[in-house]
Structures are given as structure tokens and as C-alpha cells.
């Protein structure tokens, strides 16, 4: 989806509602690694947080955690679109600039 040169990184993270938790990032689609304002000079762009649903959460929803488990993830579609289309600023999606929107004509 992001092209062959893109690497993926998963690292431990923390959310109160998942255990364990992780963060998925891809190599920055603007600078490709060295660092730039888009990736905040780290070379990586975070795409989503995820994790296994904390059993207490399931319990609270009357779902037996011994029978069911869950995988949760949250990602911003704009971020992914940025990565796929090479757009640097998610505000552009909301600015209604025809010059951008036109390029997505089917």
C-alpha cells in the first residue's frame, strides 16, 4: 500500500483499555528516513495505536473474556491517506480546495 521502500515499525505503547498495546509507524513518506518537519525529525510517521482489548473492558460489556478476546486499533484515515498520496498536511482535506479535490476524480 505504501510502496516497496516503506518499512514498518511496531513498538510497545500504552493505552488503559488494551493490554498489551502497540504503536505502528511507517517510514516517513516525505523524507524517507533522515528526518523532516512532517515526521518531526524522527524518520517515522505513526499511523495507529492498537492492542489486545483489556479483559476488564470485555467484562464491563458482559462479554466473557475467557471465551472471547479482541484486537483493537485506531487509526486516522487522513494520516493513511497522507502516506498513500504524499500529502503533508491533513488540513488540506477540509479546505475544499478544488485543485486538490479535482485530482481525485474517479
Amino acid at each position, binding site marked *: 500500500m505504501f510502496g516497496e521502500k516503506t518499512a514498518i515499525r511496531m*513498538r*510497545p*505503547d*500504552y493505552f488503559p483499555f488494551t493490554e498489551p498495546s502497540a504503536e505502528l509507524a511507517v517510514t516517513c513518506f516525505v523524507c524517507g528516513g533522515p528526518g523532516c518537519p512532517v515526521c518531526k*525529525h*524522527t524518520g517515522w510517521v505513526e499511523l495507529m495505536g492498537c492492542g489486545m482489548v483489556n479483559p476488564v473492558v470485555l467484562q464491563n460489556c458482559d462479554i466473557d473474556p475467557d471465551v472471547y478476546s479482541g484486537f483493537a486499533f485506531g487509526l486516522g484515515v487522513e494520516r493513511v491517506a497522507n502516506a498513500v498520496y504524499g500529502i503533508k498536511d491533513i488540513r488540506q482535506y477540509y479546505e475544499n480546495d478544488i485543485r486538490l479535490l479535482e485530482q481525485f476524480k474517479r
Partner: protein
Amino acid sequence: MKITYNWLKEFVKVDLPVRDLSVQLTLTGPEVASAKPVGISRENEDKIVLVKIGDINPHPNADNLRIANAQGHEGNYRIITNSKTVEKGDYVLVALPGAKLPNGMEIKAVELRGEKSEGMFLGKDSLNLEEKSTDVWRLGREEKKARSLLHEYSKEDHVLEVELTSNRSDCLSVIGMARETAAMVNKDLKTPEPKVTETTEEIPDIQIKDEDLCPRYSARILRDVLVTESPDWIKRKLELCGIRPINNIVDATNYVLLEYGHPMHSFDLDRLEGQKIIVRKASRDEVFRTLDGQDRALTDKMLVICDEKKAVALAGIMGGENSEILPTTRNILLESAYFEPVSIRTTSKKDGFKDRIFLSFRTHRRLGHHHHRPGPLRRDHPGEFSRREGLEDAR
């Protein structure tokens, strides 16, 4: 949270270069957001030198500039500066052409408004020793002191900025990060062994009125201390980690905070009425001034440290102006305690405290107060306290 690479290495023998260590730690859990080089690198050793300002005069064509003639060991230099504060006789650092500063800047000989400059006087920020300097770094007016100061601050090191998730408060200290590093690279954690070189028979008068909010309070009395400047090596470590050095007593507790992650506080014993400590909830509408000069309105939910008559500190958050260590302080009550984390958090939110100190009590939420060690062990942390008769390093 900032720690330094060299400080971390005091507790774990990791031979990974900074870059690799940062990447690996990030992959394991604690995110190393940045690793900034500080000090003077080997390549720059002969290009960043200590000089003494021989004379300094206004620039003929620029109001905000002055031209200085500076003398160093290897030669004399003509330097143009926009500094408002340097004077004849000051020792400063000059970066000569060819020097590459950590921020990427390369020094060249230039001409400014028709006058030549053979280099540049440096602010502490040019060596990443602080975020943003307001002026050129002055190292004093005595050569020996200036050289010794330079020797300490020029040491090559890196400041690691670590971003932690709220479940990892165990890493909120040098030793915490060292423990994580040791587990990661499969080496031993070198546990610190503080030496107590003085014994005391004096038992402080402590009364805990609220055991739920304060399960444990320990303290020690230190008599005949001399409040003075901390040694350069302590000041440097504090500054690099974003804490401003104040005096040897306050700096010692901050040093312990950075290193162990345990917050401690010093009270001027003679300013504690009754020379005692009472740990209790505040009364509604009790007013109290914290040592940042702000008046705080207390509620009956907040835990305060008090003397016989009044509140002297907001437990686990900030000390009061009424008991703070002054240059004339002679006797100290040193506190090492454990306070209930949720209460600390609630109280600090009420008044908008951003101090990182209360974050440390999160550690205790994880580890419980079993991890809390008695005050006396901490008190002799190297190089902290001085006696009236003279300076005496405990290390």
C-alpha cells in the same frame, strides 16, 4: 524527561553508541525522542578555546556590536560580539574558524559592518548546555576557576529526552532507565551504595495525623550546614536535565530526584515552629505561599506538611516560602516520604502545578511504598552537604 548518556552509564555497562541505544530503547518501550550532543567534541578541541577579554570597545558602525581583543594560550583574537554583558577581564569561550557547533553551525572568519571578526563568543546554548542562552557564557574572572568550569562542562555527553507512557513511571529516573537498559542488553544494573559517613542520635519530632494519605514519613536532622554553591559536576548534571541549580542543599535533593526518582525536600529546621513536623490535611481556606511566590488557597482535602502552627509544604508537591532554605540556613530537616498518589495528583491539578516532582509518586503507585528507602541512606549522596567549618565532600 531528560537524562544524560554518561549518567546512565554510571549504572549499567552498556557499550552501545548513543544512536543505537536510543533506537533500541524506543523499540523496547521508553521512547527516546532526541539525543543531543553536549560539550566540546574532539574535533573541536583546538577550535573552541578559553580566552580572557583584554579590552572591548563599541563597533564604529553598529550600535549593538562591540569589538573585543581576547587573549588565549595559543594567541590573541579579535572578536565582534553582540553581547551586552561581557566586560574586560571576563573569561569566555571563543569558537574559531573551522569549529563545527553541535547545532550544525560552522564558524568562519567574517566581516561585520566593515570590521573583521576572527571567531565567535559562545553562549551555553551553542554547546547544547541549555535551551536558549540570553547572552555569552561568562566563566568568571579567575583563570583557575574558569578552566575548571570549562573542564567539567566541555565533557562530551548526550542529553536523552525520553517520552514515557503513564504505565512506565519506573523509568522516570536515571536508575529507572538504567534498569530498563540493563534488562534490554542483558547486563547487570549497578545498584548505588550510598555511604553514610555521619551518624546522629537526634530523632526528629514527626507526627503523622493522616496515615492513609501518608503511610510513611522519614526524616533526618542535619546540623551546622553551610549553604553554598554546588560543585560544578552537580550543577552541570542538573542543568543538562533541565533543573536550575540553586544551592548545595536544594541541588542535592534535586539530584536525588533525577537519579533515583524519589522526591525529597529540605526544610530550614529553625524556621519550623516547635522544630517539629505534623502531616495532616489542610483546613478549609488555609492560605499558604509556595516557594515560587504564589499564594495558594488550600482545601480540607489537601495534604500538608506543617510545623506546630502552620503549613510549611504542600505534601509531595512543593515546599513553602516560610521554610525554604536560605543562604543563612544552618540546620536542616531532610524529608523522604511516601504520599498517596491520587491525592497528590488531585491537589496538584487544583492549582495547576506542572512540577515533575509529583510524577514520581506515580512510581510509587506501581512499586508501593516498600520501595521507599529511609531518608538517612539518601542523605549522604556524594558531594552534597557542607559543614560550617569548610567544604567536605561525602564522596
